[in-house]
Protein backbone atom coordinates (compact mmCIF):
# COMPACT_ATOMS: atom_id res chain seq x y z
CA UNK A 1 0.00 0.00 0.00
CA UNK A 2 2.62 2.51 1.22
CA UNK A 3 4.90 1.47 -1.65
CA UNK A 4 2.09 1.98 -4.10
CA UNK A 5 1.41 5.59 -3.12
CA UNK A 6 4.96 6.44 -1.99
CA UNK A 7 5.91 8.72 0.89
CA UNK A 8 6.76 11.56 -1.50
CA UNK A 9 3.22 11.60 -2.74
CA UNK A 10 1.97 12.13 0.81
CA UNK A 11 4.40 14.88 1.88
CA UNK A 12 2.90 17.74 -0.06
CA UNK A 13 2.28 21.22 1.32
CA UNK A 14 -1.48 20.76 1.06
CA UNK A 15 -1.29 17.61 3.22
CA UNK A 16 0.80 19.15 5.99
CA UNK A 17 -1.80 19.99 8.61
CA UNK A 18 0.65 19.53 11.46
CA UNK A 19 4.13 20.92 11.22
CA UNK A 20 7.09 20.74 13.51
CA UNK A 21 7.69 23.72 15.75
CA UNK A 22 11.29 24.90 15.63
CA UNK A 23 11.24 25.55 19.40
CA UNK A 24 11.30 21.77 19.96
CA UNK A 25 14.86 20.42 19.72
CA UNK A 26 15.81 17.20 17.91
CA UNK A 27 16.39 15.38 21.20
CA UNK A 28 14.26 12.25 21.53
CA UNK A 29 11.73 12.62 24.36
CA UNK A 30 12.49 10.21 27.21
CA UNK A 31 8.86 10.05 28.34
CA UNK A 32 6.92 6.77 28.45
CA UNK A 33 4.46 6.03 25.61
CA UNK A 34 1.18 7.86 26.18
CA UNK A 35 2.54 10.31 28.74
CA UNK A 36 1.05 13.81 28.70
CA UNK A 37 4.36 15.65 29.18
CA UNK A 38 5.30 15.56 25.50
CA UNK A 39 1.96 17.09 24.53
CA UNK A 40 2.29 19.93 27.04
CA UNK A 41 5.91 20.55 25.95
CA UNK A 42 4.70 20.84 22.38
CA UNK A 43 1.88 23.24 23.28
CA UNK A 44 4.37 25.48 25.08
CA UNK A 45 6.85 25.30 22.22
CA UNK A 46 4.17 26.22 19.70
CA UNK A 47 3.02 29.20 21.73
CA UNK A 48 6.57 30.45 22.29
CA UNK A 49 7.16 30.23 18.53
CA UNK A 50 3.82 31.73 17.51
CA UNK A 51 4.10 34.61 19.98
CA UNK A 52 7.75 35.26 19.06
CA UNK A 53 8.90 34.81 22.66
CA UNK A 54 12.06 32.71 22.25
CA UNK A 55 14.44 35.55 23.06
CA UNK A 56 12.24 36.71 25.94
CA UNK A 57 11.68 33.38 27.66
CA UNK A 58 13.41 31.91 30.71
CA UNK A 59 12.04 28.59 31.91
CA UNK A 60 12.57 26.97 35.28
CA UNK A 61 12.56 23.17 35.27
CA UNK A 62 11.57 20.92 38.18
CA UNK A 63 12.78 17.71 39.71
CA UNK A 64 10.58 14.86 38.56
CA UNK A 65 9.87 13.20 35.20
CA UNK A 66 10.24 16.54 33.43
CA UNK A 67 13.64 17.30 34.96
CA UNK A 68 15.07 17.21 31.43
CA UNK A 69 12.52 19.68 30.10
CA UNK A 70 15.53 21.76 29.07
CA UNK A 71 16.63 19.09 26.59
CA UNK A 72 13.51 19.55 24.54
CA UNK A 73 12.79 23.25 24.19
CA UNK A 74 15.24 25.58 22.48
CA UNK A 75 15.03 28.28 25.13
CA UNK A 76 17.13 29.44 28.09
CA UNK A 77 16.42 27.21 31.10
CA UNK A 78 17.39 26.91 34.74
CA UNK A 79 17.18 23.60 36.60
CA UNK A 80 15.82 24.10 40.12
CA UNK A 81 16.22 21.97 43.22
CA UNK A 82 13.12 19.89 44.05
CA UNK A 83 10.18 22.21 44.73
CA UNK A 84 12.10 25.48 44.50
CA UNK A 85 11.20 26.57 40.97
CA UNK A 86 8.91 29.43 42.11
CA UNK A 87 11.74 30.87 44.24
CA UNK A 88 14.08 30.90 41.22
CA UNK A 89 11.36 32.37 39.02
CA UNK A 90 10.66 35.08 41.61
CA UNK A 91 14.23 36.34 41.41
CA UNK A 92 14.48 35.97 37.63
CA UNK A 93 11.33 37.99 37.01
CA UNK A 94 12.21 40.67 39.55
CA UNK A 95 15.71 41.08 38.11
CA UNK A 96 14.55 40.87 34.49
CA UNK A 97 11.01 42.28 34.65
CA UNK A 98 10.62 42.53 30.85
CA UNK A 99 11.11 38.80 30.29
CA UNK A 100 8.58 35.98 30.07
CA UNK A 101 9.29 33.57 32.92
CA UNK A 102 7.55 30.29 33.61
CA UNK A 103 8.01 27.25 35.82
CA UNK A 104 7.10 23.72 34.76
CA UNK A 105 6.41 21.49 37.77
CA UNK A 106 4.90 18.16 38.65
CA UNK A 107 2.66 17.37 41.61
CA UNK A 108 5.40 16.15 43.95
CA UNK A 109 7.54 19.16 43.14
CA UNK A 110 4.79 21.78 43.38
CA UNK A 111 2.31 20.35 45.87
CA UNK A 112 4.55 18.48 48.34
CA UNK A 113 8.11 19.67 48.79
CA UNK A 114 7.47 23.02 47.08
CA UNK A 115 4.14 23.90 48.70
CA UNK A 116 5.65 26.82 50.56
CA UNK A 117 7.41 28.33 47.53
CA UNK A 118 4.28 27.87 45.41
CA UNK A 119 1.87 29.48 47.84
CA UNK A 120 4.14 32.37 48.74
CA UNK A 121 5.05 33.19 45.13
CA UNK A 122 1.35 33.14 44.21
CA UNK A 123 0.44 35.16 47.28
CA UNK A 124 3.05 37.82 46.50
CA UNK A 125 1.59 37.93 43.02
CA UNK A 126 4.89 37.25 41.30
CA UNK A 127 4.50 37.97 37.60
CA UNK A 128 5.33 34.59 36.14
CA UNK A 129 3.43 31.58 34.87
CA UNK A 130 3.28 28.29 36.74
CA UNK A 131 2.52 25.15 34.74
CA UNK A 132 1.46 22.36 37.05
CA UNK A 133 1.31 18.81 35.71
CA UNK A 134 -0.86 16.72 38.01
CA UNK A 135 -0.93 12.99 37.37
CA UNK A 136 -1.44 11.97 40.99
CA UNK A 137 1.77 9.99 41.25
CA UNK A 138 5.55 10.23 41.54
CA UNK A 139 6.53 8.99 38.10
CA UNK A 140 10.30 9.42 38.09
CA UNK A 141 10.95 7.53 41.32
CA UNK A 142 8.73 4.64 40.27
CA UNK A 143 5.09 5.34 41.09
CA UNK A 144 4.86 6.38 44.74
CA UNK A 145 1.90 8.22 46.28
CA UNK A 146 1.79 11.94 45.52
CA UNK A 147 0.10 14.74 47.48
CA UNK A 148 -2.50 14.69 44.68
CA UNK A 149 -3.11 10.90 44.62
CA UNK A 150 -6.88 10.62 44.85
CA UNK A 151 -8.61 8.61 47.62
CA UNK A 152 -8.49 4.90 46.93
CA UNK A 153 -5.91 5.27 44.17
CA UNK A 154 -3.13 2.70 44.16
CA UNK A 155 0.55 3.53 44.08
CA UNK A 156 3.70 1.73 45.23
CA UNK A 157 3.43 3.43 48.64
CA UNK A 158 -0.36 3.09 48.83
CA UNK A 159 -0.56 -0.46 47.44
CA UNK A 160 -4.07 -1.04 48.84
CA UNK A 161 -5.29 2.34 47.64
CA UNK A 162 -4.93 5.75 49.32
CA UNK A 163 -6.53 5.45 52.76
CA UNK A 164 -7.13 9.08 53.73
CA UNK A 165 -7.37 8.20 57.44
CA UNK A 166 -3.88 6.73 57.31
CA UNK A 167 -2.24 8.82 54.60
CA UNK A 168 -4.12 12.09 54.67
CA UNK A 169 -6.11 13.79 51.96
CA UNK A 170 -5.06 14.85 48.49
CA UNK A 171 -4.19 18.52 48.21
CA UNK A 172 -6.02 20.67 45.67
CA UNK A 173 -3.31 23.26 45.14
CA UNK A 174 -5.04 24.92 42.22
CA UNK A 175 -8.13 25.58 44.33
CA UNK A 176 -5.91 27.00 47.07
CA UNK A 177 -3.95 29.37 44.85
CA UNK A 178 -7.19 30.57 43.21
CA UNK A 179 -8.20 32.01 46.60
CA UNK A 180 -5.00 34.07 46.92
CA UNK A 181 -5.10 37.76 46.02
CA UNK A 182 -1.81 37.50 44.10
CA UNK A 183 -3.08 35.17 41.38
CA UNK A 184 -4.54 36.65 38.20
CA UNK A 185 -5.60 33.67 36.14
CA UNK A 186 -6.04 30.13 37.44
CA UNK A 187 -7.29 27.29 35.30
CA UNK A 188 -7.37 23.49 35.20
CA UNK A 189 -7.09 21.67 31.88
CA UNK A 190 -6.14 18.28 30.49
CA UNK A 191 -4.50 16.86 27.36
CA UNK A 192 -6.10 13.42 27.24
CA UNK A 193 -8.17 14.04 24.09
CA UNK A 194 -7.51 16.19 21.00
CA UNK A 195 -10.33 18.54 22.06
CA UNK A 196 -8.75 18.99 25.48
CA UNK A 197 -5.35 19.59 23.89
CA UNK A 198 -6.90 22.47 21.92
CA UNK A 199 -8.59 23.85 25.03
CA UNK A 200 -5.32 23.63 26.95
CA UNK A 201 -3.48 25.49 24.22
CA UNK A 202 -6.11 28.19 24.28
CA UNK A 203 -5.86 28.50 28.07
CA UNK A 204 -2.06 28.50 27.89
CA UNK A 205 -2.05 31.25 25.26
CA UNK A 206 -4.33 33.30 27.49
CA UNK A 207 -2.01 32.71 30.45
CA UNK A 208 1.02 33.81 28.40
CA UNK A 209 -0.88 36.90 27.30
CA UNK A 210 -2.00 37.72 30.83
CA UNK A 211 1.57 37.27 32.01
CA UNK A 212 2.70 40.19 29.89
CA UNK A 213 0.29 42.45 31.80
CA UNK A 214 2.32 41.96 35.04
CA UNK A 215 -0.83 41.75 37.12
CA UNK A 216 -0.06 38.66 39.13
CA UNK A 217 0.71 34.98 38.97
CA UNK A 218 -0.91 32.85 36.29
CA UNK A 219 -1.42 29.21 37.15
CA UNK A 220 -2.32 26.44 34.70
CA UNK A 221 -2.90 22.96 36.08
CA UNK A 222 -2.96 20.12 33.61
CA UNK A 223 -4.53 16.93 34.89
CA UNK A 224 -2.42 14.32 33.19
CA UNK A 225 -1.82 10.59 33.11
CA UNK A 226 0.97 8.21 34.02
CA UNK A 227 0.47 4.95 32.11
CA UNK A 228 3.66 3.43 33.58
CA UNK A 229 3.01 4.50 37.16
CA UNK A 230 -0.66 3.67 36.96
CA UNK A 231 0.19 0.27 35.39
CA UNK A 232 -2.13 0.82 32.45
CA UNK A 233 -1.94 1.11 28.69
CA UNK A 234 -2.09 4.70 27.40
CA UNK A 235 -5.70 4.17 26.28
CA UNK A 236 -6.71 2.70 29.66
CA UNK A 237 -4.91 5.53 31.44
CA UNK A 238 -6.80 8.22 29.56
CA UNK A 239 -10.08 6.44 30.25
CA UNK A 240 -9.18 6.09 33.94
CA UNK A 241 -8.25 9.78 34.04
CA UNK A 242 -11.61 10.77 32.65
CA UNK A 243 -13.57 8.49 34.99
CA UNK A 244 -11.59 9.02 38.20
CA UNK A 245 -9.30 12.05 38.10
CA UNK A 246 -11.65 14.53 36.45
CA UNK A 247 -14.54 14.09 38.92
CA UNK A 248 -12.04 14.91 41.69
CA UNK A 249 -10.19 17.61 39.72
CA UNK A 250 -12.91 19.16 37.52
CA UNK A 251 -11.68 21.04 34.46
CA UNK A 252 -12.26 24.71 33.80
CA UNK A 253 -11.25 28.19 34.92
CA UNK A 254 -11.03 28.72 38.68
CA UNK A 255 -10.17 32.39 38.50
CA UNK A 256 -10.53 34.71 35.52
CA UNK A 257 -9.37 38.29 35.38
CA UNK A 258 -12.18 40.77 35.40
CA UNK A 259 -10.32 44.00 34.79
CA UNK A 260 -10.38 45.82 31.49
CA UNK A 261 -6.90 44.82 30.37
CA UNK A 262 -7.86 41.19 30.37
CA UNK A 263 -10.94 41.74 28.24
CA UNK A 264 -8.98 42.46 25.07
CA UNK A 265 -9.04 39.45 22.76
CA UNK A 266 -5.96 37.25 22.87
CA UNK A 267 -4.44 37.08 19.40
CA UNK A 268 -7.79 36.73 17.64
CA UNK A 269 -6.12 35.78 14.36
CA UNK A 270 -4.61 32.70 15.99
CA UNK A 271 -6.73 29.66 15.40
CA UNK A 272 -6.03 27.03 18.06
Amino acid at each position, binding site marked *: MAEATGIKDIIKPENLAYKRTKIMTDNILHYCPGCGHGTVHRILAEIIEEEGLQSETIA*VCPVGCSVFF*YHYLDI*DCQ*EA*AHGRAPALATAIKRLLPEKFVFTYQGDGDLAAIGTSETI*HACNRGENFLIIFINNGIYGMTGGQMAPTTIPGMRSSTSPYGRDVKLMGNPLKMTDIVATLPGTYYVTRQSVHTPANVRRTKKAMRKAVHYQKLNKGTCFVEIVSNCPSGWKMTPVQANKWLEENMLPFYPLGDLKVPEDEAAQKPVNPEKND
Partner: protein
Amino acid sequence: MEKELRLMKGNEAVAEAAIRAGADGYFGYPITPQSEILEYLMEASPWKTTGMVVLQAESEVAAINMVYGGAACGKKVMTTSSSPGISLKQEGISYIAGSELPCLIVNVVRGGPGLGTIQPSQSDYFQAVKGGGHGDYHLIVLAPASVQEMADFVGLGFDLAFKYRNPVMILSDGAIGQMMEKVWLGPQKERSKTVPEWATTGKPPTRERNIITSLDLDPARQEVFVRKLVAKYDEIREKEVRCEEFQCDDAEYLLVAYGTSARVCQKSVQLGRAGGLKVGLLRPITLFPFPLKQINKLADRVKIILSVEMSAGQMIEDVQLAVNGKVPVYHFGRMGGMIPSPDEVLEHLKSKIIGG
Protein backbone atom coordinates in the same frame (compact mmCIF):
# COMPACT_ATOMS: atom_id res chain seq x y z
CA MET B 1 29.42 59.84 46.11
CA GLU B 2 33.00 59.67 47.34
CA LYS B 3 34.54 57.62 50.13
CA GLU B 4 32.71 58.24 53.36
CA LEU B 5 33.50 57.63 57.03
CA ARG B 6 30.63 56.27 59.09
CA LEU B 7 30.08 54.67 62.49
CA MET B 8 28.18 51.47 61.83
CA LYS B 9 27.36 47.99 63.01
CA GLY B 10 29.02 45.22 61.02
CA ASN B 11 25.64 44.11 59.74
CA GLU B 12 24.76 47.61 58.56
CA ALA B 13 28.15 47.88 56.87
CA VAL B 14 27.40 44.73 54.85
CA ALA B 15 24.10 46.19 53.70
CA GLU B 16 25.51 49.60 52.75
CA ALA B 17 28.53 48.01 51.08
CA ALA B 18 26.23 45.80 49.02
CA ILE B 19 24.36 48.81 47.66
CA ARG B 20 27.61 50.63 46.94
CA ALA B 21 29.18 47.57 45.31
CA GLY B 22 26.39 47.72 42.73
CA ALA B 23 24.64 44.55 43.87
CA ASP B 24 21.60 43.63 41.75
CA GLY B 25 19.64 41.72 44.35
CA TYR B 26 19.38 40.71 47.99
CA PHE B 27 17.12 37.90 49.19
CA GLY B 28 16.95 37.20 52.91
CA TYR B 29 14.97 36.01 55.87
CA PRO B 30 15.16 37.47 59.37
CA ILE B 31 17.28 35.70 61.98
CA THR B 32 19.23 37.01 64.96
CA PRO B 33 21.98 38.28 65.05
CA GLN B 34 21.91 39.52 61.45
CA SER B 35 18.41 40.93 60.89
CA GLU B 36 19.81 44.48 60.66
CA ILE B 37 21.03 43.68 57.15
CA LEU B 38 17.53 43.21 55.74
CA GLU B 39 16.17 46.02 57.91
CA TYR B 40 18.85 48.43 56.70
CA LEU B 41 18.23 47.52 53.07
CA MET B 42 14.46 47.94 53.34
CA GLU B 43 14.95 51.34 54.93
CA ALA B 44 17.56 52.40 52.39
CA SER B 45 15.21 51.24 49.55
CA PRO B 46 17.97 50.92 46.94
CA TRP B 47 15.42 49.90 44.26
CA LYS B 48 14.62 53.61 44.09
CA THR B 49 18.25 54.62 43.53
CA THR B 50 20.47 51.91 42.06
CA GLY B 51 17.65 49.59 41.04
CA MET B 52 18.82 46.85 43.42
CA VAL B 53 16.07 44.33 44.19
CA VAL B 54 15.51 43.56 47.89
CA LEU B 55 13.05 40.88 48.95
CA GLN B 56 12.13 39.28 52.25
CA ALA B 57 11.64 35.64 51.31
CA GLU B 58 9.26 33.20 53.01
CA SER B 59 12.16 31.08 54.30
CA GLU B 60 15.91 30.69 54.13
CA VAL B 61 15.32 27.87 51.67
CA ALA B 62 13.41 30.18 49.32
CA ALA B 63 15.99 32.96 49.78
CA ILE B 64 18.96 30.86 48.67
CA ASN B 65 16.98 29.55 45.69
CA MET B 66 16.11 33.12 44.73
CA VAL B 67 19.86 33.72 44.81
CA TYR B 68 20.27 30.74 42.46
CA GLY B 69 17.68 32.15 40.05
CA GLY B 70 19.21 35.62 40.08
CA ALA B 71 22.79 34.37 39.81
CA ALA B 72 21.82 32.22 36.84
CA CYS B 73 20.74 35.43 35.08
CA GLY B 74 24.32 36.69 35.55
CA LYS B 75 23.27 39.12 38.26
CA LYS B 76 25.23 40.14 41.36
CA VAL B 77 23.04 38.64 44.06
CA MET B 78 23.46 37.78 47.71
CA THR B 79 21.84 36.47 50.85
CA THR B 80 22.70 36.67 54.52
CA SER B 81 21.72 34.59 57.51
CA SER B 82 22.98 33.10 60.76
CA SER B 83 23.90 29.52 61.59
CA PRO B 84 20.49 27.71 61.71
CA GLY B 85 19.43 29.61 58.60
CA ILE B 86 22.69 28.81 56.84
CA SER B 87 22.07 25.12 57.56
CA LEU B 88 18.75 25.47 55.74
CA LYS B 89 20.49 27.10 52.81
CA GLN B 90 23.02 24.29 52.36
CA GLU B 91 21.01 22.42 49.75
CA GLY B 92 20.78 25.54 47.63
CA ILE B 93 24.46 26.35 48.14
CA SER B 94 25.40 22.89 46.87
CA TYR B 95 23.24 23.44 43.74
CA ILE B 96 24.82 26.88 43.24
CA ALA B 97 28.33 25.39 43.48
CA GLY B 98 27.27 22.49 41.23
CA SER B 99 25.90 24.92 38.63
CA GLU B 100 29.00 27.14 38.93
CA LEU B 101 27.08 30.26 39.81
CA PRO B 102 28.64 33.34 41.42
CA CYS B 103 26.98 34.73 44.54
CA LEU B 104 27.71 36.08 47.99
CA ILE B 105 26.49 34.45 51.21
CA VAL B 106 27.10 36.03 54.61
CA ASN B 107 26.95 33.89 57.76
CA VAL B 108 26.83 35.93 60.97
CA VAL B 109 27.56 32.90 63.11
CA ARG B 110 25.85 32.19 66.43
CA GLY B 111 26.50 29.33 68.84
CA GLY B 112 25.06 25.91 68.05
CA PRO B 113 24.23 23.12 67.54
CA GLY B 114 20.49 23.34 66.97
CA LEU B 115 18.87 26.58 67.97
CA GLY B 116 21.83 27.01 70.34
CA THR B 117 22.19 30.63 71.29
CA ILE B 118 22.13 34.02 69.61
CA GLN B 119 25.59 34.95 70.90
CA PRO B 120 28.71 34.97 68.68
CA SER B 121 30.50 31.77 67.83
CA GLN B 122 32.87 30.25 65.29
CA SER B 123 31.35 26.79 65.37
CA ASP B 124 30.32 26.82 61.68
CA TYR B 125 33.93 26.58 60.45
CA PHE B 126 33.62 22.99 59.25
CA GLN B 127 30.32 23.71 57.53
CA ALA B 128 31.73 26.73 55.70
CA VAL B 129 35.16 25.39 54.83
CA LYS B 130 34.68 21.65 54.34
CA GLY B 131 31.47 21.67 52.34
CA GLY B 132 28.23 22.07 54.25
CA GLY B 133 25.98 20.72 51.55
CA HIS B 134 26.33 17.47 49.63
CA GLY B 135 28.94 16.71 47.01
CA ASP B 136 32.52 17.64 46.11
CA TYR B 137 32.64 21.40 46.27
CA HIS B 138 34.20 24.34 48.09
CA LEU B 139 33.14 27.85 48.85
CA ILE B 140 35.66 30.65 48.90
CA VAL B 141 35.47 31.68 52.57
CA LEU B 142 36.44 35.14 53.81
CA ALA B 143 36.76 35.83 57.53
CA PRO B 144 36.38 39.51 58.49
CA ALA B 145 37.81 40.69 61.83
CA SER B 146 36.39 44.21 61.80
CA VAL B 147 33.44 46.26 60.62
CA GLN B 148 35.75 47.66 57.94
CA GLU B 149 36.37 44.17 56.60
CA MET B 150 32.64 43.38 56.74
CA ALA B 151 32.21 46.21 54.26
CA ASP B 152 35.34 45.56 52.19
CA PHE B 153 34.69 41.85 51.75
CA VAL B 154 31.33 42.44 50.08
CA GLY B 155 33.00 43.93 47.00
CA LEU B 156 35.91 41.49 47.21
CA GLY B 157 33.46 38.60 47.61
CA PHE B 158 31.52 39.55 44.49
CA ASP B 159 34.76 39.98 42.52
CA LEU B 160 36.03 36.53 43.53
CA ALA B 161 32.61 34.96 42.92
CA PHE B 162 32.51 36.23 39.33
CA LYS B 163 36.20 35.58 38.70
CA TYR B 164 35.79 31.90 39.55
CA ARG B 165 32.02 31.40 38.96
CA ASN B 166 31.86 30.11 42.52
CA PRO B 167 29.83 30.99 45.61
CA VAL B 168 31.71 33.07 48.20
CA MET B 169 30.91 33.06 51.90
CA ILE B 170 31.75 35.79 54.38
CA LEU B 171 32.10 33.85 57.63
CA SER B 172 31.49 36.46 60.28
CA ASP B 173 30.03 36.13 63.76
CA GLY B 174 27.56 37.84 66.05
CA ALA B 175 30.25 40.04 67.58
CA ILE B 176 31.47 41.49 64.27
CA GLY B 177 27.87 41.79 63.07
CA GLN B 178 26.66 43.65 66.15
CA MET B 179 29.60 45.79 67.18
CA MET B 180 29.96 49.37 65.96
CA GLU B 181 33.20 50.69 64.55
CA LYS B 182 34.15 53.41 62.17
CA VAL B 183 34.20 52.26 58.60
CA TRP B 184 35.31 53.80 55.32
CA LEU B 185 32.71 53.13 52.68
CA GLY B 186 33.69 53.13 49.02
CA PRO B 187 31.98 55.26 46.37
CA GLN B 188 28.76 54.08 44.72
CA LYS B 189 29.50 51.71 41.85
CA GLU B 190 27.21 51.43 38.84
CA ARG B 191 25.33 48.16 38.56
CA SER B 192 26.97 46.09 35.85
CA LYS B 193 25.35 46.13 32.42
CA THR B 194 27.44 43.31 31.00
CA VAL B 195 25.70 39.98 30.67
CA PRO B 196 27.96 36.94 31.12
CA GLU B 197 27.88 34.65 28.08
CA TRP B 198 26.52 31.75 30.17
CA ALA B 199 23.62 33.68 31.73
CA THR B 200 19.99 32.78 31.08
CA THR B 201 18.40 36.00 29.88
CA GLY B 202 16.35 34.71 26.92
CA LYS B 203 17.91 33.02 23.90
CA PRO B 204 18.61 35.43 21.03
CA PRO B 205 19.07 33.99 17.52
CA THR B 206 22.79 34.75 17.79
CA ARG B 207 23.67 32.08 20.35
CA GLU B 208 22.81 28.57 21.51
CA ARG B 209 20.40 28.28 24.42
CA ASN B 210 21.92 28.58 27.88
CA ILE B 211 21.10 25.92 30.43
CA ILE B 212 21.97 26.29 34.10
CA THR B 213 21.93 22.91 35.80
CA SER B 214 23.95 20.73 38.16
CA LEU B 215 22.50 17.51 36.75
CA ASP B 216 24.30 14.96 34.57
CA LEU B 217 23.18 11.35 34.79
CA ASP B 218 26.27 10.10 32.93
CA PRO B 219 28.85 9.33 35.65
CA ALA B 220 31.76 9.66 33.23
CA ARG B 221 30.70 13.17 32.25
CA GLN B 222 29.90 14.07 35.86
CA GLU B 223 33.42 13.01 36.83
CA VAL B 224 34.86 15.24 34.13
CA PHE B 225 32.83 18.09 35.58
CA VAL B 226 33.99 17.43 39.16
CA ARG B 227 37.60 17.33 37.90
CA LYS B 228 36.99 20.75 36.39
CA LEU B 229 35.80 21.98 39.81
CA VAL B 230 38.87 20.45 41.45
CA ALA B 231 41.13 22.30 39.01
CA LYS B 232 39.31 25.51 39.84
CA TYR B 233 39.77 24.97 43.58
CA ASP B 234 43.47 24.24 42.99
CA GLU B 235 43.80 27.55 41.16
CA ILE B 236 42.02 29.28 44.05
CA ARG B 237 44.41 27.62 46.52
CA GLU B 238 47.32 28.84 44.45
CA LYS B 239 46.20 32.44 43.93
CA GLU B 240 43.75 33.58 46.56
CA VAL B 241 45.27 32.84 49.98
CA ARG B 242 45.08 35.88 52.20
CA CYS B 243 46.41 36.13 55.74
CA GLU B 244 47.97 38.62 58.09
CA GLU B 245 50.96 38.19 60.39
CA PHE B 246 51.17 40.13 63.64
CA GLN B 247 54.51 40.16 65.49
CA CYS B 248 55.56 36.83 63.99
CA ASP B 249 59.14 37.71 63.03
CA ASP B 250 60.78 36.67 66.27
CA ALA B 251 57.86 34.74 67.77
CA GLU B 252 58.51 31.57 69.75
CA TYR B 253 54.85 30.92 70.36
CA LEU B 254 52.35 31.31 67.54
CA LEU B 255 48.63 31.91 67.91
CA VAL B 256 46.45 31.13 64.91
CA ALA B 257 43.02 32.77 65.02
CA TYR B 258 40.51 34.37 62.64
CA GLY B 259 37.63 36.85 62.99
CA THR B 260 36.67 37.85 66.53
CA SER B 261 39.18 35.41 68.02
CA ALA B 262 41.94 37.16 66.06
CA ARG B 263 40.89 40.50 67.53
CA VAL B 264 41.14 38.98 71.02
CA CYS B 265 44.48 37.31 70.26
CA GLN B 266 45.97 40.52 68.94
CA LYS B 267 45.57 41.92 72.44
CA SER B 268 46.90 38.66 73.97
CA VAL B 269 50.06 39.10 71.88
CA GLN B 270 50.51 42.66 73.14
CA LEU B 271 49.97 41.56 76.77
CA GLY B 272 52.34 38.62 76.33
CA ARG B 273 55.06 40.78 74.79
CA ALA B 274 54.68 43.33 77.58
CA GLY B 275 55.45 40.46 79.96
CA GLY B 276 58.47 39.32 77.92
CA LEU B 277 56.83 36.39 76.14
CA LYS B 278 57.60 36.25 72.42
CA VAL B 279 54.12 35.60 71.06
CA GLY B 280 52.91 36.19 67.52
CA LEU B 281 49.62 35.85 65.67
CA LEU B 282 48.78 34.54 62.25
CA ARG B 283 45.30 35.57 61.14
CA PRO B 284 43.86 33.64 58.19
CA ILE B 285 41.72 36.04 56.15
CA THR B 286 40.70 33.35 53.70
CA LEU B 287 39.63 30.13 55.44
CA PHE B 288 39.26 28.45 52.10
CA PRO B 289 41.85 28.62 50.67
CA PHE B 290 43.63 28.15 54.01
CA PRO B 291 47.15 29.66 54.49
CA LEU B 292 48.82 26.25 54.67
CA LYS B 293 52.21 27.33 53.30
CA GLN B 294 52.41 30.41 55.50
CA ILE B 295 51.72 28.41 58.67
CA ASN B 296 54.03 25.61 57.59
CA LYS B 297 56.85 28.13 57.15
CA LEU B 298 56.23 29.66 60.58
CA ALA B 299 56.27 26.18 62.10
CA ASP B 300 59.98 26.04 61.24
CA ARG B 301 60.64 28.93 63.63
CA VAL B 302 58.23 28.62 66.55
CA LYS B 303 58.14 26.16 69.44
CA ILE B 304 54.41 25.76 69.85
CA ILE B 305 51.28 26.69 67.95
CA LEU B 306 47.94 27.44 69.62
CA SER B 307 44.76 27.50 67.55
CA VAL B 308 42.32 29.85 69.27
CA GLU B 309 38.70 29.51 68.20
CA MET B 310 35.22 30.14 69.53
CA SER B 311 34.45 26.48 68.90
CA ALA B 312 35.31 23.06 70.30
CA GLY B 313 38.22 22.86 67.86
CA GLN B 314 37.58 22.97 64.14
CA MET B 315 40.20 25.14 62.43
CA ILE B 316 42.86 23.28 64.44
CA GLU B 317 42.54 20.40 61.96
CA ASP B 318 43.69 22.66 59.13
CA VAL B 319 46.45 24.13 61.32
CA GLN B 320 47.67 20.58 62.05
CA LEU B 321 47.64 19.77 58.34
CA ALA B 322 49.66 22.91 57.68
CA VAL B 323 52.18 22.19 60.44
CA ASN B 324 52.49 18.56 59.40
CA GLY B 325 53.92 17.46 62.73
CA LYS B 326 56.80 19.96 62.85
CA VAL B 327 55.76 21.40 66.24
CA PRO B 328 52.99 20.62 68.75
CA VAL B 329 49.63 22.20 67.94
CA TYR B 330 47.12 22.91 70.70
CA HIS B 331 43.60 24.22 70.83
CA PHE B 332 42.00 26.78 73.08
CA GLY B 333 38.33 27.41 72.64
CA ARG B 334 35.24 28.91 74.19
CA MET B 335 31.90 27.61 73.04
CA GLY B 336 28.19 28.18 73.10
CA GLY B 337 28.42 31.91 72.45
CA MET B 338 31.22 32.73 74.91
CA ILE B 339 34.07 35.03 73.82
CA PRO B 340 37.50 34.46 75.42
CA SER B 341 39.29 37.41 77.00
CA PRO B 342 42.86 38.30 75.95
CA ASP B 343 44.08 37.46 79.47
CA GLU B 344 42.37 34.11 79.38
CA VAL B 345 44.11 33.14 76.12
CA LEU B 346 47.50 34.30 77.39
CA GLU B 347 47.03 32.57 80.74
CA HIS B 348 46.10 29.33 78.99
CA LEU B 349 49.19 29.57 76.78
CA LYS B 350 51.47 30.26 79.76
CA SER B 351 50.15 27.90 82.40
CA LYS B 352 48.52 25.03 80.50
CA ILE B 353 50.76 24.78 77.45
CA ILE B 354 54.18 26.31 78.08
CA GLY B 355 54.13 25.52 81.78
CA GLY B 356 52.03 22.36 81.45
